[in-house]
């Protein structure tokens, strides 16, 4: 998950919805909310985990179609590392 990001995207029109559904299909995005591209609705925010390799293309597509987005998680791997128990930490071990 190195460099993967989670984006919050807000489609405002049915045209945005169509464009996002296409981007989900072509870029192998991991939709967190909703889980299915067909459940994307105008006015309802999406949370998408975007592989690092697809970030540029997705953000380019969003900018091109004037779809607003924000970065929720800047680096998924970094976030995961900080939520894992540290080696040798004092929590209970079997």
């Amino acid at each position: 998950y190195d460099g993967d990001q989670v984006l919050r995207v807000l489609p405002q029109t049915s045209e945005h919805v169509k464009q996002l559904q296409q981007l989900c299909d072509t870029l192998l995005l991991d939709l967190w909310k909703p889980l299915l591209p067909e459940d994307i609705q105008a006015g309802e925010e999406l949370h998408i985990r975007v592989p690092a390799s697809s970030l540029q293309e997705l953000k380019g597509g969003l900018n091109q179609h004037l779809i607003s987005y924000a970065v929720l998680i800047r680096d998924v791997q970094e976030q995961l590392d900080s939520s894992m128990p540290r080696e040798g930490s004092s929590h209970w071990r079997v």
Partner: protein
Amino acid sequence: PEGYSYNVYHPMEEIYHWMYQIKESNSELVTQHYLGMTYENRPMYYLKISQPSNKAKKIIWMDCGIHAREWISPAFCQWFVKEILQNYKTDPKIKSFLQNLDVYILPVLNIDGYIYSWTTERLWRKSRSAHVNGTCFGTDLNRNFNGSWGSIGVSHNCSSLIFCGTGPESEPETKAVARFIEKRKSDVLCFLTIHSYGQYILTPYGYKTDLASNHQDLVEAAEKAAVALKEKHGTNFTVGPTSLVLYKNSGSSRDWAHMIGIPFSYTFELRDKGAYGFILPPDQIQPTCEETTTAVMTIIEYVNQK
């Protein structure tokens, strides 16, 4: 168990050991029981919290960890057991409901997936069953239950996150839960399944927009729970039928439980609303579990009085 931290996430071997320790050190109240085997041949156990009594008691069922990556869910089931055990002698509400109700808790339903999320792919969601000659893996166990299976909000493609399996209850984990509950369905008053994220208390149905026959009662109890939850740390939860407040999905355990006659059936979607999503930091385990405990206790109290 001594030294056990409820403020960190635990791998499955520790949860197995925790279950053993819990029943050993609380034998007056807790027993551990075998439920079935997973696809990868691991045993599934549930804990029964029951105050010895001669009178017949009704059942509250709660399962956690049906989706592997939602780590806060098993953490909550463990927290909830700890809360009951720490407080049942002094808390009048817990004392009262334990006179009428037994609580059955399955801390991790999707054990294979949970282990896979620890060892290989943190954001794995499904079980680990093999399909299409081992070319793709995993069934979404919350799309695999009977009653409404395969109709909406699912995929029949096994590489999908929401693959519903090859048939209703095709997965051993689903079958184990379904057989167990079916046998006792006339005694089960309340079926709770704990997920993340989104901050919802979801009622039946997900597969259709029709309201449940006891919709008013379902929502009344859930709204009381949401109010109590908010009082704890200020977190807002949305209450309502899944198909109306979230999205349509079929084959969920919540819908199945209600369809077989269990009156109070809910899905909890715990913190948060997307800031961390499935990667909720450990420092949020405690407040999340505190507020959820309050909500679940409120529902149990409602059911008990009802």
